[in-house]
């Protein structure tokens, strides 16, 4: 057991625990706080996998920006009475259970296929941080997806403005 494995185990346990906390809390604010904890644990996991850039982005974008959206959703919907949200066995829970079972199956088969867990990452990337490697890959191999992302962001921007502005004109 070296330090790498111990850290990975710690972050993995923390990630699972905070994820369980997130879905079991009745109070939406407590759930959101657990979700922030979960994002930080994921960032730690990325660090143990030598993906420094992804780890920093995880904290910047998810724990920073996405959580603002989650908190605003809580404020927008004003989920004071959480009892209303408890739902019975419905179409949604059935589909959710099916998807979760499929995912669990995939994880199990993935683990069985590669039980060694050898780190296949390139030595250079582990040395200097993955940012330069990501930059190279992004602007050579993945240049088309990169440019497509700008169109996706543009579409999201216009969609957000159109949806929110419609409500503004109705005077809410």
């Amino acid at each position: 057991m070296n330090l790498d494995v111990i850290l990975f185990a710690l972050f993995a346990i923390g990630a699972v625990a905070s994820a369980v906390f997130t879905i079991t809390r009745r109070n939406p604010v407590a759930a959101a706080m657990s979700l922030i904890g979960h994002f930080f644990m994921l960032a730690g996991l990325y660090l143990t996998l030598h993906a420094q850039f992804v780890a920093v982005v995880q904290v910047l974008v998810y724990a920073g920006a996405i959580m603002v959206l989650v908190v605003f959703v809580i404020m927008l919907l004003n989920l004071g009475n959480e009892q209303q949200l408890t739902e019975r066995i419905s179409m949604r829970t059935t589909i959710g259970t099916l998807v979760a079972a499929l995912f669990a199956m995939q994880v199990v088969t993935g683990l069985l296929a590669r039980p060694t867990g050898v780190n296949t990452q390139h030595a250079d990337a582990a040395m200097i941080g993955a940012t330069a490697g990501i930059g190279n890959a992004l602007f050579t191999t993945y240049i088309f997806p990169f440019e497509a992302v700008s169109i996706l962001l543009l579409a999201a921007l216009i969609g957000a403005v159109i949806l929110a502005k419609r409500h503004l004109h109705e005077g809410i």
Partner: protein
Amino acid sequence: MVESYIPLFVMILVGIIFGASNIVLTEILGPKRSTRTKLSTYESGMEPVKSARERFSVKFYLVAMIFILFDIEIVFMYPWAVQFKELGMYGFVAMILFMVLLFSGYIYVVKKGALKWD
């Protein structure tokens, strides 16, 4: 490999200890002479009128949404900036194309008045 993160862990640890110790120490050392006014909700000197748990306008959400989209744009600029010299003119043009598309989105947002707080 992990050893190079030790300064980072020390910094996070010091940050947690500093924040937690401030809360705990003021709780232990500070005098507590509570009055009705002291215990009421702080509203910048105003009398609190009603519950703070009310529905907020969608305007806040719109600003947060626009912030996120440009935040993601900046995230893509980090790897580009690190490899700026190596990628050269080709990377520059690719980034300009990316920026132009998103800047047109910014112009749309401004022209539409989405950032106006009416």
